[in-house]
């Protein structure tokens, strides 16, 4: 005998006003396997739950059906309740007679008949339920942060300060990201290096943080709590353990390469550090430009190095490490406007630059020591045009989004020009001015008071005339064409996801949206999580942001990672698939269908006699990866793989129950 107990809830009058609950309970009593049925005003309340527990004890009930609201509402409540009884919490089914009956039907007779049907289905299913036990997996207490911009730095520091080990992986030779390229930061105008470089030094000195630079994520296996990451360490050709960063090699290297960090406004040698305050403060060799590595000539750096650090034979290496949690902080890049804007000269005019190039120009430690000059001739510009929304908010250019930081940094740039160049004139072409942030509107206001002229409209064309750059556009407030002759034009271009971010995220099972920004699990309620358990998002990889928002999100992601790492082990749902090895033919159809890579074929030694040994393939389930969708069960030809809690026999019984 199944000894099933059925409990019908009134939900106040929510249910009872439409469904004849007494009739439902009476009908339940007649069902096969049911030994007890009762109804009560509020099953989910304290006394309601107590009543169920008492009935379990008194009548020796072994399986429970509750006819009430949706299982999405109280299934966990009743599971918790069953933990206090002798009944396994998975020997429970809920008949949804509120959302699916009393709230959507008005005729009491019809509604009651349907409620009885739903109870009959639940009773048939519960009779085939199996006791299940949640299992747990151990958690590796170490986090990986991918990307060492301000987002990654903040997340790593927060996790490390909470007492957990963190590895920060950066693909460039130094951490710092875009923020270290900036001069001053809005709205307070504090110097970017002054607030970011101390954090970088904290990082490198932190006992819980290990810094990996010139590294990439090559492959990932595993899942929340246990990600096995294959890390590719690119060759640096400089022994980082003994190098002191004296700089002799950088001085003597004869090669000149355009510096990406300085946006091509200066040169750097082939053995170089990204910028003077780079962390780690040691050079690496750029293998594409080193004469020794490309042509087997030169070798000067090896000769001048007092410690013998140079190792031309260095090679890329790959190794595996395991992490419990992952924070993705891959940041952004600026769009390549030269490929998109022929009307702005497509890069033919040296004095049309983007915002980051301007940051380098105005930066005291930049190539001009902070003098704003024209890249073409080094002259001080008297008239500067700033163009906003270049690429941003322009579906025709394939970038419909607002890049969010540009309105404010354009105001900052205007302010810096007016401050540094006496008598300068600044025109800002804009579509809208967006300043939603603390003290942002005030900052913008001040910039206008300082003398920046805001012109509402897009610039349609930039061309050269008499050595000056003519910016032609429409002033849409006046409704007429305007032309400004400028000495320097700064295009405040669109942020876009960092190259390769989508691919890196995919290795961890996280996805990107149509524009390539990494996808949060819920846009409002789960903004730092991804669909992949244990993988969190920080900073501009998730969408354009300024520094305050980036840092806030990074701390949010860190809090999530800390919460995970604070646990020793994690409960996993037992409602996953299981394989009956005796039935499994090892065909592998299920392996291909699984979206989580949870299934694999393994060799089973079926028989081991004195003369022969028979081996065959069977499917194995990785309990940490299986999410319980059950897609594989349909692909299985022999019916060997089945989903616990939703087994074939349970669903078939539910169907049969409707027509008995």
């Amino acid at each position, binding site marked *: 005998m199944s000894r099933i107990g059925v409990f019908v809830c009134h939900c106040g009058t929510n249910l009872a006003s439409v469904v004849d609950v007494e009739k439902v309970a009476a009908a339940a009593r007649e069902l096969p396997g049911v030994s007890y049925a009762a109804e009560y005003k509020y099953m989910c309340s304290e006394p309601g739950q107590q009543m169920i527990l008492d009935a379990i004890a008194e009548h020796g009930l072994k399986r429970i059906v509750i006819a009430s609201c949706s299982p999405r509402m109280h299934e966990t409540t009743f599971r918790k309740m069953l933990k206090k009884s002798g009944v396994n919490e998975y020997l429970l089914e809920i008949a949804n007679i509120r959302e699916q009956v009393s709230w959507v039907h008005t005729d009491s007779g019809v509604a009651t008949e349907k409620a009885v049907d739903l109870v009959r289905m639940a009773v048939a299913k519960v009779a085939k339920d199996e006791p299940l036990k949640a299992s747990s997996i151990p958690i590796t207490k170490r986090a990986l942060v991918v990307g060492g911009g301000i987002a990654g730095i903040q997340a790593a520091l927060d996790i490390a300060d909470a007492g957990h080990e963190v590895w920060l992986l950066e693909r460039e030779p130094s951490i710092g990201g875009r923020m270290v390229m900036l001069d001053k930061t809005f709205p307070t105008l504090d110097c970017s290096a002054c607030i970011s470089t101390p954090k970088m030094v904290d990082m490198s000195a932190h006992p819980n943080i290990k810094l990996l630079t010139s590294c990439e994520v090559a492959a990932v296996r595993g899942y929340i709590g246990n990600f096995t990451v294959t890390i590719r360490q690119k060759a640096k050709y400089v022994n980082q353990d003994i190098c002191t960063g004296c700089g002799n090699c950088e001085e003597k290297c004869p090669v000149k390469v355009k510096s990406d960090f300085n946006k091509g406004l200066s040169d750097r040698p082939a053995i170089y550090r990204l910028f003077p305050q780079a962390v780690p403060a040691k050079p690496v060799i750029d293998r594409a430009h080193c004469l020794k590595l490309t042509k087997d000539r030169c070798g000067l750096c090896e000769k001048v190095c007092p410690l013998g650090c140079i190792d031309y034979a260095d090679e890329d290496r790959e190794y595996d490490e395991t992490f419990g949690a992952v924070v993705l902080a891959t940041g952004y890049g600026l769009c390549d406007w030269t490929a998109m804007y022929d009307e702005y000269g497509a890069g033919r005019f040296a004095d049309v630059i983007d915002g980051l190039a301007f940051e380098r120009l105005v930066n005291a430690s930049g190539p001009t020591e902070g003098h704003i000059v024209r890249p073409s001739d080094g002259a001080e510009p008297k008239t500067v045009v700033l163009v906003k929304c270049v690429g941003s908010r322009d579906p025709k250019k394939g970038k419909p989004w607002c890049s969010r930081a540009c309105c404010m940094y354009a105001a900052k740039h205007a302010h810096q020009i007016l401050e540094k160049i006496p008598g300068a004139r600044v025109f800002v072409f804009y579509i809208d001015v967006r300043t939603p942030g603390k003290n942002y509107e005030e900052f913008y206001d001040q910039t206008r008071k300082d003398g920046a002229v805001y012109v509402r409209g897009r610039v349609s064309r930039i061309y050269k005339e008499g050595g000056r750059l003519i910016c032609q556009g429409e002033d849409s407030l006046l409704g007429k064409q305007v032309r400004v002759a400028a000495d320097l034009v700064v295009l405040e271009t669109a942020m876009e996801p960092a190259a390769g971010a989508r691919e890196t995220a995919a290795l961890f099972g996280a996805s990107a949206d149509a524009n390539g920004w990494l996808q949060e699990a819920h846009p409002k309620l789960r903004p730092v999580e991804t669909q992949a358990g244990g993988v969190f998002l920080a900073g501009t990889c998730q969408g354009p942001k300024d520094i305050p928002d980036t840092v806030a999100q990074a701390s949010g992601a860190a809090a999530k990672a800390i919460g995970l790492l604070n646990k020793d082990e994690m409960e996993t749902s037992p409602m996953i698939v299981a394989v009956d090895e005796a039935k499994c033919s090892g065909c592998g159809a299920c392996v291909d269908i699984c979206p989580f890579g949870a299934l694999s074929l393994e060799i089973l030694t079926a028989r081991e006699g004195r003369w022969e040994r028979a081996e065959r393939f069977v499917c194995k389930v990785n309990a940490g990866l299986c999410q319980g969708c059950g897609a594989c069960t349909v692909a299985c030809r022999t019916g060997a793989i089945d989903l616990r809690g939703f087994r074939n026999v349970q*669903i078939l019984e539910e169907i049969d129950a409707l027509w008995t």
Partner: protein
Amino acid sequence: MDVANRTNTAAGGEPKILAFCCNWCTYTGADLAGLNRMKYPANVRVVRVPCSGRVNPQFILRAFARGADGVVVCGCHPGDCHYATGNFFTRRRFMLMRGLLEFNGIDPRRFHARWISGSEAAKFRDFVSEVCAIVKGLGHE
């Protein structure tokens, strides 16, 4: 077995339609229809499954064999699947399903699949009402 003759409509009663709804999207959408007190015909009985990809064509044949007048399968929109790709399998499987039903002497108009998200309560109501009307129209074969 003459499946068509076993349906409830054949016996003159109200038709019964079995609906397989995925837990994450359509089941939630149906709950929302309740929360919003939307009204729809009482002919539908929902079986909750984790994913529409869990629905074995065998379940559908079984329902018809037992006397279902109609069967529907509902899941998340393509690209929105809680399990990433489950509903793509659903789509492929149920294109084949219609042919299989016809082969078994069941009018394929008795079977429908639809993507209904957790917020599309009205779509759930409309879909259920529509299938109900179709099935009633088919009556006794």
